[in-house]
């Protein structure tokens, strides 16, 4: 089937069953572990179909330099495909070019690299994320008021993109003022700490624009501990946040970075190796959680880790549709 290989990068004598390399940046956090779970499930399916025989996993322990070294090792051992969550949006570009030149299929998902030397990129749209979140919040506070902006760590493209995505909507509503803005890791504890201090310093807050992870849960806990009224808040599909949402009856909106991106990237890699034409960029539509469907999500909560993320359901049909749609 490789004769008519149309997808980028793939070259050479690549026959099923394939060896897939999964270049993870850090495998310890729960989101990553869940993602790895979807990848492993997908690999099992593909193994049954005789398409894959091995999954090689590396863990860069959060260090982009180590990730480059590990991708290099994958090139050296000539895996057929590399699926990748990048530790930096620029750093792996050159090693990926080398992998591409060697004819290895590369599917980059979640954290993307600024390069076109990959077979395909798979992700939600971070700017859209910021935009939709901002629009929901502005709407929820009635088009005016004081808001806090909680964002992920500085110096990381994803957080920057989400934040920039929110800009247009905020500019369009001059009566919405950002009274304070903060960057923390996408975790509960640092968000709770920052929001607590910000709440003391700013007595009036009408809404919180939280741009992901467990930041929203931290903010809700901070408000709750101070005995303050909850305010409209945006968020992500962290189980703790969804449960708090229900418990406190929040006026809220959330989207997600579905963990099945990993399974989908694996699927895409194999499709590309099998000679299918895959689009250079597969944009995953942002699933939205709001009061209309939160109960469906919470109904499945028990299937997910307590500190994990409740992702939307997926199956092969969804994958096929996503690949066809673009």
């Amino acid at each position, binding site marked *: 089937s490789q004769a008519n290989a149309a997808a980028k990068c793939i070259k050479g004598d690549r026959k099923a069953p394939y060896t897939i390399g999964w270049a993870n940046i850090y495998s310890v956090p729960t989101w990553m572990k869940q993602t790895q779970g979807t990848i492993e499930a997908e690999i099992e399916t593909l193994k049954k179909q005789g398409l894959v025989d091995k999954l090689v996993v590396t863990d860069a322990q959060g260090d982009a330099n180590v990730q480059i070294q590990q991708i290099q090792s994958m090139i050296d051992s000539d895996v057929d495909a590399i699926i990748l969550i990048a530790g930096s949006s620029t750093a792996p570009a050159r090693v990926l070019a080398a992998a591409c030149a060697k004819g290895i299929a590369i599917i980059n998902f979640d954290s993307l690299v600024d390069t076109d030397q990959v077979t395909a990129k798979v992700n939600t749209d971070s700017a859209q994320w910021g935009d939709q979140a901002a629009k929901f919040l502005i709407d929820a506070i009635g088009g005016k008021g004081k808001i806090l902006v909680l964002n992920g760590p500085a110096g990381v493209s994803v957080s920057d993109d989400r934040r920039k995505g929110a800009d247009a909507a905020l500019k369009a509503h001059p009566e919405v003022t950002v009274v304070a803005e903060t960057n923390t890791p996408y975790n509960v504890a640092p968000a709770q700490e920052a929001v*607590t201090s910000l709440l003391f310093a700013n007595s009036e807050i009408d809404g919180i624009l939280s741009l992901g992870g467990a930041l929203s849960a931290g903010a809700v806990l901070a408000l709750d501990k101070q005995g303050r009224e909850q305010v409209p808040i945006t968020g992500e599909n962290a189980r703790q946040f969804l449960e708090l949402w229900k418990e406190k009856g929040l006026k809220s909106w959330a989207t997600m970075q579905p963990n099945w991106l990993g399974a989908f990237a694996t699927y895409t890699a194999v499709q590309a190796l099998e000679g299918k034409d895959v689009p250079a960029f597969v944009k995953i539509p942002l699933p939205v959680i709001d009061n209309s469907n939160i109960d469906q999500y919470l109904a499945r909560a*028990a299937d997910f880790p307590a500190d994990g993320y409740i992702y939307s359901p997926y199956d092969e049909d969804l994958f096929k549709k996503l690949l066809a749609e673009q």
Partner: protein
Amino acid sequence: MTAWKETVGGRRALTILRSRPFLTVAIVAAVWIVASFVSRGFGAYGHLRYLVELAAVIGLVAAGQTFVVIAGGIDLSVAAIVTVSAVSLPLLSWQADPTGLTAVLAVLALTTTIGLVNGLGVALLRVHPMIMTLAMATFLQGLLIIIAGGSAVTAENPLVRWIGNARPAGIPAGVLLWVAVSVIVLAAMHATSFGARLFAMGANPLAATLSGVPFASTTLAVYGISGFTSGLAGVLVLGMNGQGYVGIGDPYLLASIAAVVLGGTSILGGLGTYAGTIPGAILLVTITALITVVNASPGWRSILFGSLILGLLLLSGREQARR
């Protein structure tokens, strides 16, 4: 006029006034006062109380760290131990024990054991503390991959919840816990022969050994204590956040070392006191909160944070000459 300085009481008062712990306390007070002028909400009682509650977590981790540093070592595994504690506790739910105490004790036993293993490596294998505890932190990451996200249930532990949220007599339970631990730590450090051995080991391990200080067992104890207090901090931080997660302990590695050193304990060992670490921890959370409420870009905030630490260090931190 200066006669009071000559009296015994006066001399003692002067020593206290000039001591690092006192200076650190004074700096914390000054920062609080200045900050509450800049931002009125900052100096609110509730906020200061919250800062002390946050400092309790650092303070607990730094308690063990102070022991270790004074004895001439360092513990780079504290962050991982905090995480292990906070992540594994929800996995344990003894139906038989409605208070949740058993689960907490089991986790503390686990983290103490981790600390003891550190001690074994340092004392018996003679591995440099930095290497031993760094390797331990790496091990624990592997352990976390296995245990993290493994539970589909949130085990609500009443005791943990109480520690993280209750306010008996208006004082957060975490702060009360910290006070209790501080009293014990200060007593062990300065009023027992165990404490005296630590200082001796840190200042000159060779001379301490030749004087009969039991090196191995003391080292074991010191790292065991560090594992215990880190585990305790994990319990507290779990209670305060309702949910443990991987990475929950990460901020406490540098924070614990910084609190120890800002409090005047020499990183080279042999000199110092937990009495300085306590205000050191409060100082750290205060500065962190301060830069949170300042409106600036992340880059400038980071610069401000570093400059504040450096500036405060200039006020308090002259190293004593040694050797």
